[in-house]
């Protein structure tokens, strides 16, 4: 639990066309990820590092069902997205792909570049100065899905045990 994560701040209403722009949708995820969020922060995809987290405003992930919106963040190594609310469809896609989403009313209090810890037992984001931001609870089976690395891995295991 001592791992810390660098925060990238984004605003409200980050939509799926910003996360996975339509013009690149014909490419594989390796081709889409470098354009992730370029309309709002052109430097993001090139500068984000594995283990970093996004702290955003309300309604993160609104729009399309394209799961490449979540897959691009996974591809870039984003550990979690912390926001006061998410699109319900994006929420499902993220967990299916092993991306952790934390619904956190206080996400706006996180600062660009600060280091935070994620306390999944206590369901809170913990800042370096000790501030604890409470997050909504997540059903056990969805946490299991994230820990398994997504639905694909779970299905693989399920089918193997059936054989």
């Amino acid at each position, binding site marked *: 639990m001592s791992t810390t994560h660098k925060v990238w701040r984004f605003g409200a209403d980050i939509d799926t066309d910003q996360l996975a722009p339509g*013009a690149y949708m*014909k490419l594989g995820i390796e081709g889409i990820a470098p354009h992730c969020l370029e309309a709002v922060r052109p430097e993001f995809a090139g500068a984000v590092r594995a283990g970093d987290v996004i702290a955003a405003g309300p309604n993160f992930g609104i*729009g399309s069902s394209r799961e490449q919106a979540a897959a691009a963040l996974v591809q870039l190594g984003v550990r979690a997205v912390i926001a006061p609310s998410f699109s319900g469809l994006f929420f499902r896609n993220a967990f299916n792909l092993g991306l952790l989403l934390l619904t956190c009313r206080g996400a706006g209090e996180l600062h660009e570049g600060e280091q935070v810890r994620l306390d999944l037992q206590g369901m809170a984001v913990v800042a370096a100065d000790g501030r604890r931001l409470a997050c909504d609870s997540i059903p056990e089976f969805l946490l299991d899905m994230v820990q398994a690395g997504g639905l694909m891995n779970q299905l693989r295991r399920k089918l193997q045990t059936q054989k």
Partner: protein
Amino acid sequence: MKAQGRQPQTLPQKLIARASGRDHVAPGEIVSCQVDLAMFHDSSGPRRLKPMLEELGASIWNKDRVVLVMDHYVPAQDEDSRRIVRIARDWAAEQQLPHVYDSVGICHVVLPQKGHIRPGMFCVGGDSHSPTGGAFGAYMFGIGATEMLGVVVTGEIWVRVPMTLRMQWDGRLAPGVMAKDMALHMIGRFGMNGGDYQAVEFCGPAVKALSMQERMTLSNLSAEMGAQAGLIAPDQTTREWLLAVGVPDAEIELDDWCTDDGVDESVAKTFRFDAGTLAPQVAAPHSPANTKPVGEYTQVPVNVAYVGACTGAKLDDLRAAASVLRGQRVAAGTRLMVAAASVQDQRAAEAEGVMGILRDAGAELLPNACGACSGYGGSIPDGANVLATTARNFKGRMGSATAQVYLASPYTVAASALRGRITDPREVMA
């Protein structure tokens, strides 16, 4: 399936209860549902599902319950698109899928035209506008490709039972006002995530008065409200549509697919609207929630008027546009582009003279596909002001990051094409 002695339930509760094999479900419960129908298209479907299925060594749980529609990358405009469509066609042949619709229109419009959506069903679609099926009293929602893989392998999916947000529309729409205006008004009021992934139910006399395709526009746009599903209780209008597309009368079940009288606030919230006083609505860049009455935008010049998409180019939408454009030509300097939502709609529109009116008005006709709406068939010039009948005006969505995209009804788009600036269709129609 009568509601005797049972605690009152909403339509979404009943649909989820049936699919999960229970008598009753309560909001907040997480249940596993049997899927009656899984729809996906060339973008969300085979190119993603095939490799995952092969990696798992798994097969499709029930091919008869799967529908594949090629609508996003057709007609293919480059090598990448050709490759994606080829994967879909080859996989459909290899799997011997019984329900494949290739280049005949947009999935959400084709599905009900082929009689696949019926009251009482529980359906998923690999596209965010899948709630369109809710217009027929089916619980239908959009999911991503990995989750679709789960459905295709197991035939099951989990849902958290939603609250029902009842949008009660009293009165009757004025001439020149359509379902699109109702939807934009609600999105403006509640915001793009105001539906909070709950189920919306559209009801009241103004909804009952709508045609089936107009109802589909409402359900379609419940996605833009952030609802999981957007339902309308089936009635005689639904029955007539189903009979017309060849569904046997004996298979049409309407009786219990409605919200019971006496549901309380633990399961439903009701919001009331007056259809009679609703003005045509316009959503300004770059959000469908950025909606105001058309009068606020009448100074905005229109370079491109686009009648297209599952949201806004069905037969009833084409008719609306033609009723405004009949015998007239669009303004100099304004391009009118029309992409009918399905081949069937375009043929019907051709037969009744609607396509002729649109052509005579100067419309350029585009293929029956998703095209410019999703930026897949980009023909929107940089920097242009676009007024579209589509669902989404996110920055860059139509392919150009500098285009200013406004959303409106087919009436408003047609009237604005005539005047070359955003125009209240009631002025032109008067």
